[in-house]
């Protein structure tokens, strides 16, 4: 894997594990390294990760290659990532045939748990998106 692609995969997996609210530490580092390596070795580029109801599944296509419990994860929603994208997915669609219905990342906290870095907005009410605007007199142009 090229260095750039490795960096992309590592950062995507980092955000994925942050979204699960997994605390930093040796256990997480080991898990993170293993997942990055596993995705990097994916020659068909159809590998992805799904976190659903406390379990982390490593997929090759729709086939689950490995499953492990992550009881320390604090994320009620079903999350998906591959080497370069991250999203909440529809849990019912995933359960019924492994469909991946991407719902975006609204409301996910992607910073490391306990970090003092800028916290993203929490958005729960809107069906779509972001409070990102929007009167012409107050949106900086």
């Amino acid at each position, binding site marked *: 894997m090229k260095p750039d692609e490795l960096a*992309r995969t590592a*950062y995507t997996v980092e955000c994925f594990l942050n979204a699960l609210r997994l605390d930093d530490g040796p256990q997480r580092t080991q898990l993170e390294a293993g997942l990055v390596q596993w995705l990097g070795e994916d020659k068909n580029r159809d590998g992805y990760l799904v976190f659903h109801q406390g379990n982390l599944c490593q997929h090759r296509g729709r086939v689950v290659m490995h499953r492990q419990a992550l009881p320390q994860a604090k994320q009620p929603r079903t999350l998906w990532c591959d080497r370069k994208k991250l999203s909440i997915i529809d849990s019912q669609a995933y359960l019924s045939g492994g469909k991946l219905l991407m719902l975006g990342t609204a409301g996910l906290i*992607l910073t490391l748990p306990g970090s003092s870095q800028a916290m993203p*907005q929490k958005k729960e009410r809107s069906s*779509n998106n*972001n*409070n*990102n*605007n929007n009167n012409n007199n107050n949106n900086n142009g």
Partner: protein
Amino acid sequence: MVKLQTQKARSYTCQLQQAIYRDAPVSYPPLPAAEQPLYAREYLERAHPALAAAEAPPPAPVTALVLPNDLGDEKNALRALIAADPVLQQLYRADAWQLEINGETLALESQILKTRHDCPTLLPGDEIRLHLRRELLAAACPEIIRNTLYLQVLRDTAVVYGDEARSKQEHLFTYQLFAHCLQASPLGEAWLMADLGGLLALHRPLFQRGVRNNLLVTTGYLRDYHYQKQKANAFYHIQAINLPFQNLEFNYLPGDAA
């Protein structure tokens, strides 16, 4: 008789009854203060229906939204408003913008209408090209040469501003490129193109670790039209209160990464 003699509305039992109730709180527990107005109103309706009928209803709570009755009419739904307005149809088109990332293309759709959401991780070395249909530049614009590609990048860090004091995504930068500066697109004659890889890389210091960013695209004249429509149509305004333009949410590898 007592009322008649004293010329007061209270009966002689009021104070006596109150004393009895006060002295026997177990048998006659007082209503919580919050429930007393409701009980008083129920008593009034039961004992003095004529007075109750003349009384004004209690005021709505401060937190209650006041919305017009016709807000829910079908003709006022956002998609119906778009269908009735040729310029809005252009503004909300789902087939007019393509973002090409390292050779893979992704159709950009209005962020308030789309159902599928992608959030890729972008790197400084990525080839990122934005393709737009040439005809968009003529929408709501009398002279194409005056029109621009209008691009905004926001970050999912909250700021509060405006008369509404809403918590909103933070604007990082706005970029406008005049129509005649757009390049020919490999997608064909009907398309134009702008290279965004360098522009995003230039602003890398603004992209924070673990914070999503939001790229929104439109034309200068379509953006103006959106705000004119907001002023002209309150039903449109309330439903397009968030930016309605085509967008891509993305993570950007921060500068502190190895």
